[in-house]
């Protein structure tokens, strides 16, 4: 049986009358990558903040390695590393000095923190920029150094809040590889992201969070299986549609066995329990002076499970996040 490294029981966070996290319970097994997925305002960061001691817990309990640390969360901070959604190191200090300073916060001796900083700079391929000031780093480099800083004391659990948000593709890929490697070395990873593909690729189990509640928590394969009984067809139109809601409603009314929704300005996703016959749809759209340039069968993914369970369109979630 797997060992529970974190367990949250009936965790609740109230801000006055507003409940940001509403009575959620979950556990994280030692050595797994656990993902928290949800739109803006779902309560992901608040949940993390309660687990790491940056937000007071209104109700419920948090256990680390089976010990109730709800009231003494400072003790848990010795075994956790936290990467916030924004890089938060010291601009005026070099990458190397930043890492050494972070090591000192966990009581590492001078030689230990210096050796560890050097190792991490090599692992994160930042050794050439070690003596550069943090403010001179690119966004991707800043992110990598922030993760390295969270690992300086060899934590048992690494909390990552949107680790690849807003950085270049190459750095994002490198960070994902590093997360995988860390996990292979038995580090437990607690991850929040709005990139569903990232969660699908990295996580062992995922909790879908919406409006402060866990809607579904399961392994990635089980979540994907939830959508397997559906046929999904993506239809690309020859032009962007202005009134997408109206067109979706027309299609849903005309073909009662399907559910249509736009995933972007010119792509409709059609979901049906029965096999989808495309010809009547093509005819209908032609009568509306809309023409199809591509139609493809879609393999069920975590994204489908997410959309099915939360009713939230991924495109909307990404746009919201980017606006933020």
């Amino acid at each position: 049986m797997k060992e529970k490294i974190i367990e949250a029981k009936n965790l609740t966070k109230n801000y006055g009358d507003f409940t940001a996290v509403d009575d959620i319970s979950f556990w994280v097994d030692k050595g797994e990558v656990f993902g928290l997925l949800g739109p803006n305002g779902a309560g992901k960061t608040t949940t993390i903040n309660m687990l790491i001691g940056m937000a007071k817990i209104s109700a419920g309990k948090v256990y680390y390695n089976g010990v109730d640390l709800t009231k003494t969360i400072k003790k848990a901070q010795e075994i956790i590393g936290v990467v916030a959604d924004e890089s938060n190191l010291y601009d005026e200090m070099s990458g190397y000095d930043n890492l050494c300073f972070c090591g000192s916060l966990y009581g590492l001796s001078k030689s230990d923190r210096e050796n560890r900083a050097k190792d991490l700079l090599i692992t994160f391929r930042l050794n050439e920029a070690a003596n550069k000031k943090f403010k001179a780093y690119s966004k991707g480099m800043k992110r990598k150094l922030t993760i390295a800083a969270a690992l300086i004391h060899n934590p048992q659990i690494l909390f990552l809040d949107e680790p690849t948000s807003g950085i270049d593709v190459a750095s994002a890929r490198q960070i994902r590889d590093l997360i995988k490697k860390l996990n292979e070395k038995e580090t437990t990873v607690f991850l929040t992201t709005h990139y569903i593909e990232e969660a699908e690729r990295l996580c062992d189990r995922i909790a879908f969070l919406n409006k402060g509640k866990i809607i579904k928590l399961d392994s990635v394969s089980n979540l994907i299986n939830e959508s397997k009984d559906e046929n999904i067809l993506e239809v690309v139109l020859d032009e962007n549609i202005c009134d997408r809601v109206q067109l979706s409603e027309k299609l849903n009314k005309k073909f009662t066995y399907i559910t249509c929704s736009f995933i972007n300005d010119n792509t409709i996703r059609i979901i049906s329990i029965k096999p989808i016959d495309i010809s009547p749809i093509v005819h209908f759209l032609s009568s509306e002076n809309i023409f199809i340039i591509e139609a493809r069968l879609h393999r069920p993914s975590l994204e489908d499970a997410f959309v099915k369970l939360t009713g939230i369109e991924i495109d909307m979630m990404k746009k919201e996040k980017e606006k933020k």
Partner: protein
Amino acid sequence: MKQTIAFGNILLKDMRNYYLKPPNISWGIIFPFAWMLMMFVKTKSAFHIEEVFSGIVAMSILFGTTSMLSVTITFERKSRSFERLLLAPLRIELLILAKITGAILFGIFNSIIPVLFSVLYFKAVVTNWTLLVTGIILLSIISTLLGLFISVSAKEVFEAQTYSNFFRFPMIFLCGLFIPVAALPVLIQPFSYLLPVTYGVDILKYSITGDNALSIVLDLTLVIMFCFILFYSSLFFIKRKWII
């Protein structure tokens, strides 16, 4: 041991990043020097250093520490690097002590120039050196804690600066730095006695001239009491406002 390493390195980092930067060192030298020079030029031959000594020392400490701590903490909160300190397995009391120790040392450094200038150049006579050093340390602590209290309320760096000035400038007149509290209008005097700097200045005056408004025991007791009140009330607000 782990807590000591963290404490020492936070202090060292603040000294390197903020207090030992050339603009701050030059501020600590130029500011008191300019005030001494102004007094000297204004009063010419009738310049009695003992009359302004305590005021200039107090002002150098007050202006050096209050804004420095409130600005650095607000800046770190804004850039979120303060979050990193809050996430360390370090008792919050110790973390705040590490942050204020740098500012206290900076306050003490700010007082060195006027003291040296007064004693070596103007031949000021200090009647009680122990009390002078005690007064300087206590004034540095109380000014730093005022800065900490300000930083709890400020969200932006400019707010921290504005609040600092809001407190500091009235204190120049209210706390007996240059005008004795007894010479102030009767209606204003109660406000003076509500401000901890008044008692710190009184200790400095006593150490130099042997003459002060209140008993030295009362001064020391009240300053220490104010230190505890400011430290624990700031801590209370930090826990309430920053760990929400």
